[in-house]
């Protein structure tokens, strides 16, 4: 039997707090339990079944964005609300009910790394399909394979405007006087792969955008389409080399080079270590993950196991802030119910993390300072009070605190919970302990 506090650390740091069987499963061998999830985690767990596949989501998006007939505001609202009930809740329920909670955390990590946001137009209808068809299956292979699924997915092509980018010297560009939009080209290099300090120039960004012209996703088409009449002709110099004229293949070659670049290995390693180790992760942990990335050819299952093997990830329990989505998911897991409802989507907005609604392509930030602002803490207290009103009469907050934090719960904090004067307040305080607010 491992030290019991290690099992609690495993479910908090790598999962979303204990669900029904997590602690007993983790007790013998916490690291083994986490690594086994990498194999066991089905790409599409049952809870994701309601999610619309990409072609269906695109059909909705075609109606939503049509000019003729232009949909009424009612029609648009109905489509948005249907997508939220169908896709958003399925995603949250998959996280709440999963037997492989580490995999679900990784789904949220990669979805956030390759952020799309419903703050932009039709993304609300496509975000679920993006998780279903790009992120989840992509996590089973290499980073390059995931990258390919992401960049070819309509949600990303729409979100970062590549769908509307046209080579100025392409047939369509010359005829319609259309031109480049460099949004995807830039964020692909800066956020998704190389990182901002990799040494590329503005010309490299513009040329990445040129290379990707023609990568479109017309809503009516239902899926990715390479439009050669919009592709900028000719060879393109890019980041010290030349990508030869080759139509759609140029984009694939660009993704190959991005995925194999050492700067990408470092960038991905840093983000993973920041998420699973510490706000400012030790350089040794970053180096180790970057090395695993390079030695394995960017194999994601290997990389995901290597995170578990970092001793640094086990050194400081509760060093990271629990993000709002993990508060909500964590509550459902601890309650053992079947997970989220529409009120949770509203709570997430109130708590400052609307689901699939980050304000910018960077996605949600990942340090304690980002999540423990004074106003944000007050929202957490208000949410906990609301949950206390809802659950306090049914569940003893003292039991809840002990079963979710176990040996990590300090005597002093347990004393505060015991000092509450009502069952509601007891439950509220159990949610507010640093042991629940941190991971």
């Amino acid at each position, binding site marked *: 039997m491992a030290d019991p506090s290690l099992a609690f650390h495993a479910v908090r740091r790598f999962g979303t707090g204990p669900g029904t069987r997590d602690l007993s499963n983790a007790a013998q061998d916490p690291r083994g339990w986490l690594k086994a999830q990498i194999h066991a985690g089905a790409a599409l767990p049952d809870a994701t079944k309601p999610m619309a596949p990409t072609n269906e989501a695109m059909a909705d998006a075609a109606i939503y964005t049509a000019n003729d007939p232009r949909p009424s505001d009612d029609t648009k609202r109905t489509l948005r609300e249907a997508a939220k009930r169908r896709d958003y809740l399925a995603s949250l329920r998959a996280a709440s009910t999963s037997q492989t909670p580490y995999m679900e955390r990784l789904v949220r990590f990669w979805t956030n790394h390759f952020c799309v946001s419903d*703050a932009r137009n039709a993304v609300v209808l496509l975000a679920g399909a993006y998780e279903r068809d790009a992120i989840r299956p992509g996590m089973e292979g290499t980073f390059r394979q995931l990258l390919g699924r992401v960049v070819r997915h309509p949600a990303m092509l729409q979100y970062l*405007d590549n769908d*509307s*980018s*046209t080579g*100025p010297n392409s047939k369509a*560009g010359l005829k319609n006087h*259309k*031109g*480049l*939009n*460099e*949004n995807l080209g*830039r964020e692909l290099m*800066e*956020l998704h792969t190389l990182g*901002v300090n990799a040494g590329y120039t*503005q010309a490299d*960004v513009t040329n990445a955008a040129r290379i990707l012209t023609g990568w479109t996703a017309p809503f009516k088409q239902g899926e990715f389409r390479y439009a050669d009449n919009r592709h900028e002709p000719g060879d393109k110099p890019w980041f010290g080399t030349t990508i030869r004229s080759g139509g759609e293949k140029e984009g694939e070659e660009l993704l190959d080079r991005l995925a194999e670049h050492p700067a990408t290995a470092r960038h991905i390693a840093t983000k993973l270590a920041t998420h699973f180790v510490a706000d400012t992760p030790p350089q040794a942990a970053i180096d180790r993950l970057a090395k695993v990335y390079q030695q394995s050819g960017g194999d994601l299952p290997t990389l995901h196991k290597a995170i578990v093997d970092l001793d640094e990830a086990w050194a400081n329990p509760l060093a990271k802030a629990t993000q709002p989505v993990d508060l909500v998911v964590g509550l459902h897991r601890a309650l053992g119910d079947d997970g989220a409802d529409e009120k949770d989507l509203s709570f997430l907005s*109130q708590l*400052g993390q609307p689901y699939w609604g980050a*304000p*910018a392509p*960077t996605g949600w930030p990942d340090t*304690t*300072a*980002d999540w*423990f*602002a*004074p*106003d*944000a*803490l*007050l*929202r957490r*207290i*208000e*949410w906990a*009070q*609301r949950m206390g009103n809802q659950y306090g009469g049914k569940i003893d907050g003292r039991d809840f605190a002990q079963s979710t934090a176990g040996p990590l719960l*300090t005597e*002093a*904090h347990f004393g*505060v919970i015991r*000092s*509450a*004067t009502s069952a509601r*307040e007891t439950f*509220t*305080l159990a949610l*507010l*302990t*640093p042991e629940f*607010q941190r991971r």
Partner: protein
Amino acid sequence: MTRSFSLPRRRLLIGGAAALAGATTLSSNLVLAATPGGDQRLVLFVLRGAMDGLGAVIPLQDPAYQGLRTSIALEQGLPLDGFFSLHPAMAPIHGWYKEGVLLPVHAVASPYRERSHFDGQDVLELGLNAKGLTRDGWLSRTLVTMASEGTGDKAISVGVGVPLVLRGKAKVLSWAPSSMQAPADSLMDRAARLYMADAQLHSAFDGAVQAQAMAGGFDDAELRNRELKTLAEAAGHFLTAESGPRIAVISNDGWDTHVGQGGETGRLAKQLEGLSNAFVALRASLGEDAWKKTVVLAVTEFGRTAAVNGTGGTDHGTASAAFLAGGAVKGGRVLADWPGLGDAALYEDRDLAPTRDVRSLFKAALGDHLRVSRRGIEEKIFPDAGSVKAENGLFI
């Protein structure tokens, strides 16, 4: 002498929530009059996503303007100085120009010369030549410096979270509208005990309690939305609250107009209208007395390409415009060393060239308005910007 004079205020700061609660029995004027800092206020708007300066403060008379902007160019705007015009969506504050309380600044940029939003915002908020020297935002360093000079004060972030410009060693408040029920007092008492031993949660809790105390009285339904106008109104409330902060920061997203930027109407127009309405709401909420002592500063991480892109928008550029407004501003003119938009004048053949470091405005606001010492500004707040001179004559 100065030292003993400033002691009470410093103790106030060090004493934290309890001491501040005690001070609320004094009128804010009394407290503030006891400090050399006075009761000047500063409101910083951080416009995220890169505001198109050429669309906001339009160089209509520049011969290259129409040719670069084509489909999104305007024929006319709201007249400013004959050369520049204000975007029509900014009509709510156009009168301020004549009144002399609006000062558009053009061809201004932070020292950042790449085109990443996220690094650009970091450099703007750190107030440094580049990332690295410190992780504390320039307003956080300002608070620390003011405290050491005995003019210390509080700052508040209005809106979700605390932006980098206010992060650092100084404690700050933050407040955002909520549609959930406020916590019961007994709950807050017990929550305080949960966070006593956790430095980060304790500091956040303290800031929340103080902001909540000052927010008392405006949980009206209309203040529960998160529109920029609402946040501006709330900022005015905090800045005039007893023992309230004198510095407020508001972040505003949505300026990244790669597609469908539009001309007279469209995405940019909507953003500019929202900003103008927020300025108006802030002024109304402050009241004219406080407005006279207020400087509003709206800045963005960088500008956008001089030419329209292939999708009716603009891509990431370099120099942009900024806005100074407030009763303490000597406005009614456009501050610009205009580089021109001709081919040879563009930065890297694509962007409006920067001719003014945005820190010249920051330094002026801190020195001439908030009365931070020159030494504090040069050594503590902007240690790597010695060559950037504070802009003279911006404030009354």
